């Protein structure tokens, strides 16, 4: 009996493998004969920040163009730029602006990402300058009364290691993560917003899009201006807000065919809801 079961399971596994292997052979012969199948595959590699967004845009693109498949792979912005340059990927993804030595590549901005400092809505302070923010996050200022606020200890909310928001924040304020004396370490934007909304003495930083949406929906947070520029999706969109970056699709040459269609689609207003669902800012059309 047990033998029979084991034989059955084994043969099932072999059949399953054979089935998939066979289908791969079939599709291989189809690929050799382009007339039999006109499925086109577009490979995107690069920034892990852009990847989830690109995958969602890819799914919608596939549903409109059934004969196209969009394969999105991650690996980081530099990889995206390198793969686009070497031709390994049809399109690279980079969550930063192209550098001067990458000028020969074509970049297409599909969305923008900004980071805002947020306070609890009950906090009387409405503005902090760059040095004050650095002093708070490095633990030199530990009470709000030193800045003219209530007599209450400051709760610093920092991002967990590996978050791109953290990298951008550290880069902008020229800090190292080890310099930061945080009381709370959080993961994603929503968690940061909830932490600051629930603690009147907290300070944190999150994606502008998510923060503006929540602040507009009666969540007890407020966005602080940076360098005198109000933190808003509008100011990220017109690139006046200093703590922001573009999310780019990168190609080696002027794109054509399906690649062009996809890049046009990714830059169109038809994907604005997808961009906003990932807490990014659509570009102006």
């Amino acid at each position, binding site marked *: 009996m047990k033998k029979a079961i*084991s034989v059955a399971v084994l043969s099932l596994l072999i059949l399953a493998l054979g089935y998939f*292997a066979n289908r791969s052979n079939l*599709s*291989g012969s189809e690929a050799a004969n382009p007339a039999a199948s006109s499925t086109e595959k577009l*490979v995107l590699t690069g920034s892990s*920040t852009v990847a*989830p967004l690109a995958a969602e845009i890819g799914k919608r693109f596939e549903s409109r163009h059934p004969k196209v498949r969009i394969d999105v*792979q991650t690996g980081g912005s530099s990889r995206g730029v390198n793969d686009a340059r070497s031709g390994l990927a049809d399109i690279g993804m980079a969550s930063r602006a192209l550098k001067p030595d990458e000028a020969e590549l074509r970049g297409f901005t599909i969305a923008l990402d900004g980071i805002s400092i947020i306070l609890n809505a009950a906090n009387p302070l409405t503005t902090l300058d760059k040095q004050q923010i650095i002093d708070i996050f490095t633990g030199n200022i530990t009470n709000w009364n030193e800045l003219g606020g209530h007599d209450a200890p400051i709760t610093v909310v920092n991002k967990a290691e590996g978050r791109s928001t953290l990298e951008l924040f550290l880069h902008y304020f020229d800090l190292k993560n080890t310099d930061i004396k945080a009381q709370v370490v959080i993961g994603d934007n929503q*968690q940061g917003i909830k932490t600051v909304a629930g603690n009147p003495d907290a300070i944190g930083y999150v994606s502008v899009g998510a923060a503006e949406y929540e602040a507009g929906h009666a969540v007890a947070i407020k966005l602080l201006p940076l360098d005198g520029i109000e933190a808003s999706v509008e100011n990220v969109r017109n690139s006046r807000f200093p703590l922001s970056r573009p999310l780019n699709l990168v190609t080696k040459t002027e794109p054509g065919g399906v690649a062009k269609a996809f890049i046009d689609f990714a830059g169109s207003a038809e994907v604005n809801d997808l961009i906003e*669902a990932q807490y990014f800012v659509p570009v102006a059309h």
Partner: protein
Amino acid sequence: MLKNRLATVLIWLSAALICAVFVCLLADMLRNGLPRLSWSFLSQAPSDAGRAGGIAPIIVSTGLIVLVAVSAAAPLSLATAILLSEFSSPNSRFCQVIERSLEVLAGVPSIVFGLFGNAFFCIYLGLGFSILSGGLTLACMALPIMINTATVGLRSAPDDYRLCAAALGMSRGAALLHLLLPAAAPAIIAGLMLGIARAGAETAALIFTSGYVDRMPDTLMDSGRALSVHIYDLAMNVAGGDANAYASALVLVVLLLIINSLASSLTQHWLRNRIMTS
């Protein structure tokens, strides 16, 4: 006497500590993951970057990747182990070179396997980001463990078996098949399970080989996201993905437990029967 008591208490404490770590881990996963777990979570495709929907294509991809890895690694490792233990002397130069290189291979970090797999399978062999590339990369990773445990198992079979078989006029092949392999079965199974566990839980080696695409795979040449890659992405990259990451982790743990117990009971019965009937 007091020293003895103290030692006993310390030993019990360390055992309890190990259990506590396991229980905490499991409790944390159950508490956060269980509410999300449902039939639709297991049967739907992910949507909204994995925050919503399920993980059906990811489970299928993971299963295929592990299947490819095991079917490539198991015969190779068994053959190598037989060569090392039965057909060459442990002190020979040949044997030592192989064993040394296996030790080095076992110590290589998985991200290096990922880069190697990407360079060799994906680019050089032209397999691209595919389940096949990922499975073969994992096979390379699992080989050292599987070979080492199988070799040790075969070597620890008593020499009496070999002498008796020779005295009875059994060929070396028959002795291997009917006596030595069944005797080494527990070690071979252990190696197989360690290999599967390492393969199934791998993230770094897979993100550059089998890839990130969360579509239901049609063929082995399609890119397919493994569960561990999905968990990593949800936990580290997607805002608001933590709940689904926990649920996926729970699925991965349960899946590994099922595969392990299945493999163990299968192989055990399969080989036990053979030694008894022959």
